[in-house]
């Protein structure tokens, strides 16, 4: 009995020491990990002229937000940020709406095509995106011509929203349907018995229960769609309408020498997703879990 306790204490001690070293190691590694981001923030706070004069490792004479002011005024970052929001917010809402519709039908009704539907959506999410560039580009031009306006969806926010929804809805469907499977069938049965029609069953009964999954997904989706930039390069010919991530690439070429200004631009572009992640960390993690590790 007593030897068991001694052994236990020895084990706990050893474990504690081990944990300390591991924590130390992971901590040092974490500093290295975050350093490039911190360095960019640091760079964005220093005037370019001072770096040129004293070198990058010099102690700052002054720290200023001038680079941020300039980024907004010269680079027109505000407009690009607005473009990003105009594209991202409707894309996320539509993706979740459509995803929840399919998930609702697939989990609440026994149709023969249910599994196929689910497979089509989930597999679609995994296709290499490049496979679709040329046909989608032409499709958008063609639809525009049909209505006598080339810029109807090509070179328009609507087009970007459409492709984002088309590509993300598969993931949303998959996640929401696996979440919906955990909602007891009885709830649906009683809704049907009470005479609720399909729309009320979806809107008043199921949708409120989906709230945690929708919250988690919306955080994840916002990050993905906000960060995407290839579609904008393909589908937006006017630079002034491009989202901030795509615009940043051009700005990188234009302001290659003044990297303090560019750093400020990059930090502004990164801020929305970083803040979202830090504030909604819990939803973020559970969104990933729902989607990829359903066991």
């Amino acid at each position, binding site marked *: 009995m007593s030897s068991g306790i001694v052994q236990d204490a020895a084990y706990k001690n050893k474990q504690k020491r081990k944990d300390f070293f591991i924590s130390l190691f992971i901590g040092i590694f974490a500093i290295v990990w975050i350093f490039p981001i911190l360095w960019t923030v640091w760079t964005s706070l220093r005037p370019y002229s001072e770096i040129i004069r004293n070198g990058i490792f010099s102690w700052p004479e002054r720290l200023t937000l001038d680079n941020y002011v300039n980024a907004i005024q010269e680079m027109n970052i505000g407009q690009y940020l607005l473009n990003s929001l105009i594209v991202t917010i409707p894309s996320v809402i539509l993706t979740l709406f459509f995803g929840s519709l*399919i998930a609702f039908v697939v989990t609440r009704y026994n149709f023969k095509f249910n599994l196929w539907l689910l497979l089509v959506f989930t597999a679609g999410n995994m296709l290499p995106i490049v*496979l679709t560039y040329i046909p989608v580009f032409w499709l958008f031009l063609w639809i525009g011509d049909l209505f006598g306006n080339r810029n109807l969806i090509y070179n328009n926010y609507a087009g970007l929203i459409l492709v984002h929804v088309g590509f993300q809805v598969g993931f949303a469907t998959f996640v929401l349907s696996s979440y919906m499977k955990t909602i007891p069938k009885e709830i649906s049965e009683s809704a049907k018995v009470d005479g609720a029609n399909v729309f009320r069953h979806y809107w008043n009964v199921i949708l409120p229960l989906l709230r945690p999954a929708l919250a988690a997904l919306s955080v994840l989706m916002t990050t993905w769609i906000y960060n995407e930039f290839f579609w904008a390069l393909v589908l937006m010919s006017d630079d002034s309408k491009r989202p901030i991530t795509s615009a940043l690439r051009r700005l990188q070429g234009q302001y290659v020498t003044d990297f303090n200004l560019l*750093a400020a631009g990059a930090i502004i572009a990164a801020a929305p997703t970083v803040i979202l992640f830090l504030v909604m960390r819990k939803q973020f993690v559970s969104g990933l879990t729902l989607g990829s590790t359903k066991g």
Partner: protein
Amino acid sequence: MKTAATEVKNRSRRSLSKADRFTLSAFVGIPTFLQIILLWVPAVVTIILSFTYWNGVRLSDIKWAGLSNYRNIFFDNPIFYEALKNNALWLLWFIVIATPLGILLAYQIDRQIKGHKIYESIYYLPVVLSLAVIGIIWNFMLQPGGFVQGLMGRDIGNAISIWGNDSINTYVILGVASWRHIGYIMLLYLSGLKSVDPALREAAAMDGATEWQIFRKIILPTMQPVNIIIIVITLIESLRAFDLVYIIYGSPTIFPLLNLLVFQNFAGQGISMKGAAYAVILLLLCIVPIITYLRVVFKEDLK
């Protein structure tokens, strides 16, 4: 059992009114239409286009080419093999180094060591950044006049070109890519580890099992579905990789990757259906991991 199931099915179908059936059709129809029009039809069209000559300008210019795009890629295009090699290298690096590091990190952070919440956030932070931002950040670190060159005592005057140096740029690119991948894998694995009973681990440790034994004999088997998903994600990410390289170089000449070759042939000045053929090759390479993934996640439904 079976009759009960069909009974339920019949009942629910019978109880659908005309209006309900219309609503359901719209529920299924609209998203499916979008999905098919924006994804599956374009995918098929690209497969067909890969057998044609076309410069992407006028639809009437499309000419049948048979297999010649593929023949050109396989026999007259050394850059294709270079891209294949780089993709393979990328995959090897991710499988052997980045993914295990992510798993190791998750395994250690899961022990609730001091500050584990902060570590989790720090390691995950690069994953929420856009690659456009990541490109800029690492340019600051590595470009002439940047931090790393400064550490090596090289100012702008005698800087070396890290991105242009063939012997090191591969590892630099893979390193930056891992910066993102490790955090992603860590968080995925960490969320899976939450389902492993900590008592199991503790009991084994008290019985004198080494960490490696615990990991091999307890963690790995319990985490089976997560393991497969992580391998699939690693495979697909490695095959699809290119955004980072595109951001850094803008062209596939220095560090060719399959996806980069597609993009070059599609979005550059000279559009060529060789790009479509590259995309199809990429699809073929992705098919096995995609099917594996679907089989894992729909295991129960497929029965």
